[in-house]
């Protein structure tokens, strides 16, 4: 039933709303309405085998919610996620779900919270091995743990230690070793380096790239850092307030950004090379997601917004190899993007 030519991940019109109302009693007493927050609103993309697809956006844009929906930590309010053609949410029997779970793993942001402080590294890394019954006995188990640790550049002796004996970067390596222990095809990486210092970030990014090549892994990469995303991705989706505003091949996105929000993000990247480019300071802030503006949610900050943008939701349209949801792009009234310091 699997089709090895199709995409590995297909996300269809994903919607996730959270109930953010006050507790029932307080709500009734103070006569407040039920409040919902649409964290993810009609998100749709595919991830091809062996590629790195990234979601980028500011905090609260819903990128982490998408990651949780994709791996099945949360259930979508509407829409579905197909892994290799199968919908995890549609499966009921544990024996059907486990083989899919084995194939997808997640790496989290905070290396201090992602490892149980009371477990030895050996047990942390072996948890998925045990859960999926991948080994027959204890010596095979420690062999597999040692192999995973070696793959991420740690020593097999580290298995006997506790997480607090490691630095942030080493802990992130342990997380990766654990994710690899079950021989997955697909890794969801939720801001895997944003808690790390920049020199350590480089180590982890290089390691992830190396592992991708060695094991043919497919990545969904979540980050707020455009430079990092540019470095690791094959394709990129830009999110704003729960929606995808643009999807594009990584190189195209940075050379020919379409959506005004993508352009804003590019303009705010700090100029480490000291080319003298002034970092453009864009007014305004991300609106309250509980009460989003009507029409295009970006219109209050968009320099190109007109009456139509204030009233009508833009629909995503195919644009070259990518997708963009913007009235101004659709009507062809956006000026071309200029930035001096990016090579063509």
């Amino acid at each position, binding site marked *: 039933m699997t089709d090895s030519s199709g995409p590995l991940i297909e996300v269809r019109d994903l919607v996730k709303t959270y109930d953010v109302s006050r507790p029932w009693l307080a709500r009734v007493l103070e006569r407040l309405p039920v409040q919902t927050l649409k964290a993810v609103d009609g998100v749709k993309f595919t991830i091809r085998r062996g590629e790195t697809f990234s979601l980028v956006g500011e905090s609260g844009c819903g990128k982490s919610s998408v990651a949780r929906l994709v791996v*099945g930590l949360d259930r979508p309010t509407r829409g579905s996620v197909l892994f290799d053609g199968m919908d995890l949410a549609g499966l009921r029997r544990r024996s059907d*779900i486990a083989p899919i779970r084995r194939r997808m793993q997640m790496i989290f942001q905070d290396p201090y919270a992602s490892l149980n402080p009371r477990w030895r590294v050996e047990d942390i890394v072996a948890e*998925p091995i045990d*859960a999926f019954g991948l080994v027959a006995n204890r010596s095979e188990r420690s062999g597999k743990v040692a192999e995973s640790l070696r793959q991420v550049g740690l020593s097999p002796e580290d298995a006997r230690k506790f997480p607090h004996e490691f630095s942030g970067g080493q802990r992130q390596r342990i997380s990766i070793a654990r994710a690899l222990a079950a021989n997955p095809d697909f890794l969801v990486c939720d801001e895997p380096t944003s808690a790390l210092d920049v020199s350590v970030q480089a180590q982890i990014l290089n390691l992830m790239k190396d592992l991708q090549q060695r094991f043919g892994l497919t990545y969904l990469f979540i980050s707020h850092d455009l430079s990092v995303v540019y470095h690791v991705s094959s394709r990129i989706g830009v999110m704003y307030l729960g929606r995808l505003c643009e999807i594009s091949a990584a190189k195209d996105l940075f050379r020919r950004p379409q959506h005004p929000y993508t352009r804003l993000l590019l303009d705010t990247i700090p100029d480490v090379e000291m080319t003298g480019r002034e970092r453009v300071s864009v007014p305004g802030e991300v609106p309250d997601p509980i009460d989003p503006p009507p029409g295009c949610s970006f219109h209050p900050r968009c320099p190109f917004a007109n009456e139509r943008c204030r009233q009508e939701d833009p629909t995503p349209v195919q644009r070259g190899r990518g997708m963009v949801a913007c009235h101004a792009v659709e009507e062809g009234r956006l000026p071309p993007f200029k930035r001096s310091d990016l090579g063509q």
Partner: protein
Amino acid sequence: MYRRVVDSDLWFSFSRSPTVVVAAAVATIMMMAALFAPLIAPQDPFDLTSLSILDAHIPPAWMAADDHRFLLGSDDQGRDVLSAILYGSRISIGVGLASVALALVLGVSLGLLAGYVGGRLDALIMRTAEIQLSFPTILIALLLNGVMRSILPADLQDQLAIPVLIVAIGISGWVQYARTVRGTTLVEKNKEYVQAARLIGIHPLMIMLRHILPNTMGPVLVIATIHLAVAIITEATLSFLGVGVPPTEPSLGTLIRIGNDFLFSGEWWITMFPGAALAILVLAVNLLGDWLRDAFNPKLR
């Protein structure tokens, strides 16, 4: 193992506070004395054949005119007060430990469930806890004790007095554990290592037991120590009121009650020595509990 203990911060903070060292020593000595009471007590106060009514009301050794057999004096039945205290604290500490264990198991399980499962189960458990909190603990213990005794047939009442007491005190104390464990569970369950375990399909029960439970044990240990002092006091109070352990197997509370009748006839030792033993035991355990709480919460240091 030895090195790990000596190197730990807990041991460091312990060895730097003389009060705590003394409290720990006192508590240990008293517990050991209670445990080995049959070996060290001069007399078996439960063995009615060894008692002689002729020995009744003899004052402590240093005050007695001629009879120096009873270091802390004797009571109205000729029982050696020191032996009675040793055996009595045995029952007091035993009932205390057992009720703490019961409250701990009950409270920790309910707290874990409430925090992890959430929703209606959480609301049910925590509202029950709040209702129970609005009554004084001693009242709840009295009530449970009374209800259970009235259900039991008369001939079993004395036999089962101690288990009934344990259940009553245990159930009256679970709320603290549940609240604390629920709080910690709410924090831990959103940590990424729990998410990672959920992701590979680990059963919720296993997540609670293997991941979350060990991370709640620090605060639980603190509560349990402080609760031990409270449980011993509660037992003593119930026994003093006459609804606790029967006079045939006196606990410290029972001894205080018995002695209370003779306080005004000048025979103070029958009630004062058990009272002092109780106070010292509870104080020592309380001091240990306070220290543990501070040691686990570095912000207070």
